[in-house]
């Protein structure tokens, strides 16, 4: 999904860096609030407030209100555009 969005915006889909968060300490250090977390230029594609760091699964809300394990594709595209502007 991320690579597809990058390609659509004219960016290199292979520029994705995968970071494994293996421990609670890693999660704290990276302010990681769940898997998957996607950051474009260090900025969350779907920011959350007051979410504790931890090794857990992340819940996203799609734009139509449905719950999903991944962000809304439009949120990813918007984050890419924002990072490019």
């Amino acid at each position, binding site marked *: 999904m991320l690579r597809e969005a990058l390609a659509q915006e004219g960016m290199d889909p292979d520029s994705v860096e995968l970071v494994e968060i293996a421990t609670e300490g890693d999660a704290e250090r990276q302010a990681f609030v769940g898997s998957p977390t996607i950051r474009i230029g260090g900025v969350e594609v779907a920011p959350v407030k007051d979410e504790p760091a*931890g*090794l857990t*699964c*992340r*819940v996203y809300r799609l734009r139509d209100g*449905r719950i*999903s*394990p991944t962000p809304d594709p439009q949120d990813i595209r918007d984050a890419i555009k924002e990072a490019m502007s």
Partner: protein
Amino acid sequence: MNIGDAAPSFELPATDGSSHGLDGQPTAVVFTCNHCPYALAWHNRLLDVARDYDGRVRVLLINPNDADSHPRDSADAMRERVEVDGGWPAPYLRDESQSVARDYGAKTTPDVFVIDAGGVLRYRGAPDADYEDPSQDAAWLRDALDAVLEGREPERAETEPVGCSVKWSR
């Protein structure tokens, strides 16, 4: 546990303090939880099954996740969730020791097991084909329940469970 095996018996506490287990009625045992997006995406469909089959099938929702590493799956958090919703049509059980999940070989949340009145496992897997599509309406689970109620084998006895891994204690 394989299709056709006797399902392990259990007795677990629900959020309201009552106790539930297999009791000789057709039963859908669903391992689920509070924090997993897959479990949440399928949740309303599973509650609809409990309502639609009320009186014919028991639906038992079991949270087996380790609450130390995942506090959102604690007994208190489970109770709060049910209360906020104004009650559920199926009991929400806490498998604190994770022994029931282990006995059943639960892999994910959700992971669905349909057990007939004789205590035999007749279906195991996902509620339906797509967590993202509410119109699927837990069709695989419903097909299995209909088969059990009609005394026949489900056409699809096993599917791959889809969801977050059960969070085992370390």
